[in-house]
Structures are given as C-alpha cells and as structure tokens.
C-alpha cells in the first residue's frame, strides 16, 4: 500500500484522527497551564503572554500546525461520519443501548467545538494579536466585550468546554483502540492519563469563567 492508500483506508483515517486528536490534546494541556496564570495575577498573565509573543516566528509555525491538525481532524471526521451513514440501512427497531452516547454524539460535539474554536480565534486570538486597543491581555480576557465579564460569553465557554470533555471521553477511548494500545501492558496507564485529559483539564478551563465570571462577583 502507498502512503496515500494507507491514509485513505478506513483504519488509516482513524489513525489520523487519533494522532491529530492526541496532539491537539497535548496542546490543550499547555494552553491550560498558560491560562492558569490568570489566577496568579495580572502582571504574571501579561508577562506570560508577552513572552510567548516574543517567540514571534516560532509561534506562527506552531499555529500553522495547530490549524492543520484541527482541519485534518475535522475533515477526516466529517468524511468518516458521511461514509458511516452511507454504510447504514434504514431500520425499524435498532436499539442504541450498547452504544455510549459520547460516541453517538461525537460528530455533534465536534461541530460545536469547531464553532467555539472559530469564535475563540475571532475574539481572543484576534484581539491578542491585532486589536488590543491599549488594553492589557488580562483586561481583554476578563473584560465585558469578549471576556468573562460577559455572562453570555462565559456560559457559552463553559458549555463548549464541557462538550469538549465529553468529546474527549470518547476520543481517548477510541484512540486507545485505534492505536492498538488496548490489550497491551500500556492500557492501564493510558486509561489513567486519558481521565486527566477528558475530565481534569476541561475542568481547569471551566474554573476560569466560573471564578472570574461569576464567583468573584458574589464573594
């Protein structure tokens, strides 16, 4: 098989899905570490973002790869979803009880996440790079225009990240199968690590709007 034939076979597509998904998850972990500087304070967060910006060209390359992973993941996901629909026949009584809902809704949660990412780039990413208008990064994130002082924005953010966690719950278990980790000695450690990615990291992201958007005003 040529590399093209491999990557367009059903398993090849799944392998691409798994690898791009895992790489995006690793990025997500680093992204969270950066976000947590918000809890340290304004100077710490602004300093961290400035340091990232100083990397300049390297950041642009990283962003290019991230976008490529997102698009490849989405493209293959849509293609698989479409091919899987084609393989199906209409049924009168099909029971879904053995199919976990996280798997059934993976395409839906993925679509919501994509919309979220698009707004994320149009707001935070764009403002950080081109449209600060004299504000600090910290003020943009916690401001009321596109930041967490805007309750609509915070609620949307919390829902999208919760769905992301749900998406990753299926994603990690599926990737474990696709990459052949299940049934080997690494299965247990992989399963434990995947809980960090589909539960604890999304919870970390959600803690930011919950704290800065809501709790900080009550307390």
């Amino acid at each position, binding site marked *: 098989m040529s590399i093209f034939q491999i990557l367009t076979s059903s398993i090849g597509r799944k392998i691409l899905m798994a690898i791009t998904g895992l790489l995006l998850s690793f990025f997500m972990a680093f992204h969270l570490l950066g976000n947590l500087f918000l809890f340290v304070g304004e100077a710490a967060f602004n300093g961290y973002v400035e340091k990232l910006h100083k990397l300049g060209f390297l950041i642009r390359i990283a962003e290019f790869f991230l976008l490529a992973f997102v698009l490849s993941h989405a493209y293959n996901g849509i293609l698989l979803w479409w091919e899987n629909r084609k393989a199906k026949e209409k049924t*009168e009584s099909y*029971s879904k009880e053995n199919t976990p809902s996280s798997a059934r809704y993976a395409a839906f949660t993925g679509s919501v996440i994509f919309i979220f990412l698009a707004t994320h780039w149009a707001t935070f990413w764009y403002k950080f790079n081109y449209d600060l208008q004299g504000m600090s990064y910290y003020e943009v994130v916690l401001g009321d225009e596109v930041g967490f002082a805007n309750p609509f924005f915070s609620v949307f953010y919390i829902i999208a990240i919760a769905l992301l966690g749900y998406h990753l719950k299926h994603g990690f278990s599926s990737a474990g199968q696709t990459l052949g980790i299940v049934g080997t000695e690494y299965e247990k450690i992989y399963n434990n690590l995947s809980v960090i990615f589909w539960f604890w990291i999304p919870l970390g992201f959600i803690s930011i709007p919950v704290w800065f958007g809501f709790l900080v005003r009550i307390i």
Partner: protein
Amino acid sequence: MNINLKIWRQKSNKTEGKLHKYRLENVDPNISFLEMLDILNNKLIKEQQDPVAFDHDCREGICGSCGFMINGRPHGPQKATTVCQLHMRSFNDEDDILLEPFRAKSFGVIKDLSVDRQSFDRIISSAGFVSVNTGEAGEANQIPIDKSNADEAFLSAACIGCGACVAACKNSSAMLFTSAKVSHLALLPQGEKEKKERVNKMVATMDAEGFGACTNTGACSAECPKEIGQTNIARLNREFIKAQASNLFEKK
C-alpha cells in the same frame, strides 16, 4: 403464553418490505425462538400464506446461519446466545416482539429475515487463510505455541461469522468480524508468514465491500453471541500499523 409478533416481510431485494402483524396463542415457553417461528410458518402454510423466510442450520449456536433483530437487538435480549439458542421463556405473556433482518448496505435482504452475508465470505477469501502445504500430519510438538496465545487465538476463532456485529454497529462496520479473523491467525506461528499481506488485503476488502468505519463504541462485542472482545479490534489496528510501518521502512 400469547405473543404479538411484528415481522418484516419482503419478497426480494428488488421489492419494498414492510412489517406484518401476527398473533400466536398458547406458545409453550420452553420451545426455542426458531421453533416458535416454525409453528407460525406451519400455521401460515395451512392458511395458504407465504411462510416467513429465516436462516438456520445447526440450531446449536455454532454454525452462524441464524440471526435477525429481535426488538432492535441482534439475536435478541439474551447475552452470548444466537437466536436458535434463545427460548420463549425469555419473553413475557402478551409481549410485543418485533423481528427484522440484520440491516446494513453490505447485507442485502434475500427474503424476509434472511440476508446475504457473502460480503463476509469475500473478506475471508481475500486473505483469511494460511497457505500451508498439505501433506502428512507433522509431529504435534514441532511448532511450540505458548498457552496464552493458543487460548487467545481460540477465543478469536470462536467467531461464527453471523453478522450480529455489523447489525449492532451504528456504522454497520465489520471491524469485529475482520479483527477476529485477523487475530486468530496473527496469534499463531502458522499465520506469521502472511501476516502483513493478510491484514492489508482483508482491510482493503472490508472497505471495498462498503462497511462503515469503527467508532469503537463496543456495541458489537456487547451483542456478539460468541463474546468476541474489543481487544481483537485493537489487535487488528496494531497489525495494520505494524504492516504499514514495516512496508514503508523496508522499501527505502
């Protein structure tokens, strides 16, 4: 016991099918599900109607002929049993029971509950075999096989190819079937030589037959009458990755 049946009736793959209602009274709860259908068919024949077509052969749960959806589940509600091993005592008096064939684009309806599963045969005939020269039987201990691999291979070989996995899958994927066949030979030294070629050809045939891709939901294993496990799918993926990787690196 009395039961209300709704059965998918379809003359051939060229005609449209629909559900028909039948009522059976005084059914002995200790007869098998297929015997119940035999009784229904006797009744239909006496009434000069067309009997319900369904596949069956050994009625011992080992041949893989039988199988259809009972209330949306392949082989019915009981775990790890084929339809022929299911008894009417698994149902209650006055139950509604809906029967329809295994649904998938790659399984055409032949008639009523009987479907064409030749796509499975084509996956097997593409590479699901070992090319061992026939001759005199060798010494039994000539090829040592460790117990755990022999047991694993045996569990995979238990697949009877009934097609329940495809019917249980939301994507009509044949990954569990293909993975059981690949696993069973990949685990044994006899299958070693053709390992790479086998996984490549079987996956290519599976794709070409129009089965969906695996979403790793586990629905297939949950419904499999032989309890073929998800580890087989992981093993198939592993074999596929290994075969591609060694091909890519060997050539250059």
